[in-house]
């Protein structure tokens, strides 16, 4: 052979099913638009500004951390953009620019890169950022105050605040259909129930988020709320709990985050249901208006432990030395 071609030599398997992190990020990003676009429509240009700044600054922090830690630029995998997007979904439309930039900084730098970047974070970066912001600048994240300047054609009080302060009777007048259609105040991408559910179903069918976690979370919220409601009607029923606050966005975008969630079936169920139960517990008897943030953070905390419940490996040789 005179002209020997240089062959590519690498390891098996030589085929791949074509999945990649950037495709997953792209799908999650697109699905989140189903909830974000109605939010932007409802809150106008300020909401668009928050979303754009959040996505942009998250990507910027990612590049800054890549450069500082001397690692390859990784915004191509889309994970930073998704973090920025989901972070924006939770913010009120009037959030000042600096809170967006600080929030994404916490999410990307503290929540993700300090733990070693994608796949290394024990907590959901967005949840961590929101939790720190809630504790530090609670006023800004108080939807009633933040959205006071808007004139809506519906009751512009955050349903969870009503529920917390005045009990179930105060939210009795809110129809579930209104909540589904986004006729409530809340985060930019957290109010339009129908958009969140559509995006969530799409992501679950495509396998980009695990249905086990999302559905067990919703079931946990629903069942616990129902129990509370049956025991004492002063607590709101499951419908209100499921469609207000961060419940839906939490079920489909937050709690399903790969790195901080388990991978085996039973652990996924425990993790999801546990976070759901905690959510309602915090909402009904805890100090915070919305329990999703801390419920998910606590669930993240137990993730490594519950994920030890795994099926027995077939053919495993166990030696007791």
């Amino acid at each position: 052979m005179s002209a020997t071609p240089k062959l590519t030599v690498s390891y098996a398997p030589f085929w791949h099913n074509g999945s990649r992190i950037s495709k997953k990020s792209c799908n999650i990003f697109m699905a989140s638009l189903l909830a974000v676009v109605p939010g932007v429509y409802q809150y106008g240009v300020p909401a668009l500004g928050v979303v754009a700044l959040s996505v942009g600054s998250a990507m910027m922090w990612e590049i800054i951390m890549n450069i500082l830690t001397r690692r390859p630029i990784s915004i191509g995998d889309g994970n930073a953009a998704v973090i920025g997007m989901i972070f924006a979904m939770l913010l009120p439309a009037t959030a000042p620019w600096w809170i967006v930039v600080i929030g994404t900084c916490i999410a990307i730098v503290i929540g993700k890169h300090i733990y070693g970047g994608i796949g290394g974070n024990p907590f959901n970066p967005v949840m961590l950022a929101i939790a720190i912001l809630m504790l530090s600048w609670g006023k800004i994240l108080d939807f009633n105050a933040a959205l006071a300047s808007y004139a809506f054609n519906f009751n512009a009080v955050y349903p969870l605040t009503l529920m917390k302060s005045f009990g179930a009777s105060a939210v009795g007048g809110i129809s579930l259909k209104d909540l589904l259609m986004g006729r409530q105040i809340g985060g930019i991408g957290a109010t339009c129930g129908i958009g969140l559910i559509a995006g969530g179903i799409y992501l679950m069918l495509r396998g980009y988020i695990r249905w086990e976690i999302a559905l067990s979370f919703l079931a946990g919220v629903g069942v616990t709320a129902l129990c509370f409601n049956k025991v004492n009607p002063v607590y709101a029923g499951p419908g209100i709990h499921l469609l207000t606050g961060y419940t839906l966005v939490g079920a489909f975008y937050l709690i399903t985050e790969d790195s901080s969630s388990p991978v085996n079936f039973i652990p996924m169920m425990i993790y999801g249901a546990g976070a759901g139960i905690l959510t309602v517990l915090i909402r009904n008897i805890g100090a915070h208006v919305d329990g999703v943030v801390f419920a998910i953070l606590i669930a993240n905390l137990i993730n490594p432990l519950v994920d030890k419940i795994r099926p027995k490996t077939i053919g495993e040789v166990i030696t007791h030395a």
Partner: protein
Amino acid sequence: MIKRSFFGCMTPKLSYAVVDESYAEPVPVSPKKKIILFFSPTGGDSPQPAFKVGDTVSAGQKLCITDPAVPYMLSSMSGKITDITSMTGIFGKKIISATIAIDDPSQQSVDESFKSIHQAPGLGNAMEFLKCLPGYPGFGVFADKNHPVQTIAVLGMDNDLVSATNQYVVKNNIASVKTGIGVLRQITGVHNVVLIVPPQLVQVAGSSGATLKSVDMAYPSAHPVLIERYLLAQRDKPQNQTTVKSVAFFTAEAVAAIGAAYNTGRIPFEKIITFLSKDGRKRLVSAPVGTPLQDILDAMSETLGDGDRLIVGGPMTGFSVYSADYPVLPDMDTLILQESKTIPEQPDTPCINCGECIRVCPVKVPINMLVRYLEAGQFEVARDQFALFACIECGFCAYVCESRIPILQHIKLAKHTLERL
């Protein structure tokens, strides 16, 4: 390449190749100028070949290495040894390669030593002459007296995707398989022979005289480890777990070759190979063991370009070679030519804990944890806590990995490193 299905919430399924009417007769390919034989010494010292450059060999002549533990090779053609080189294969495996410039096809001389004894089949002469038949019959297990063989499993189904070699043999050459099973029963004294076939070949295989078992078409259910576990162990379950029953695996092709050898007195060398070309067409090729792959590519009118990948063995568990100057091996069921632009890229991302691997693993290895330890080089922890050695190396995890981590390679490297310690 089989892509991820749209509905990713379900467990991904990969199906084995099905041999159907679209498979034409194997295209016969003969080596043009030379054949290459590979010997793989296992010992640590440097064993020398018991032949030298310039020796003439006849077809069917046995070539050995001084190390008795090393399998001999039979030259598939007659000719003259022109070159002997040592090289290093995957994971440092030593290979001694002998190149034989072959005689003109009309003047082939044949070694008759097997012909003289083929009327009296026995395990001894089978081990002496038939160890390197196409399909690589696994006579070695019969030498282990501590684990007497209870069952012979004949694999009428290929272990990797793409390959249709053994299915083809069962479909088109069941008579030889039947003869081979008869000979195996006679020479080994093991009467419990199970023929493993895909469901659509059960009818054809019915005449083989062996117990039939059909396996699922979903990869990797035809893996010998899984077959042993699910199909063969079912009958005599837990009570006598202490007695280790040994199963001898033979491919259908090897069994057919054994049958043909004792039937005719002529040792068959033609290896049936499933060839997957750049355009995704599958064809069967029949070439003598030792034929350089370049000759097969020429016969298939395929050209190798820079950056292409030539894969010996299936797409999941095979290995890629550095040059087309690589011979047909007795156990080489598949040859894949992959064009450079279709080779999946390999990014450098860590595990994101998505759990795809966990859902596809046939033996439920906790891969998401395992791979973290393997990447950090902590092989002992991986072995002790995360079932490293339970892995059957099917490659499914790396196939679905979203981060495209070379999980299978990590696992093989870890096993290799630990075994060397």
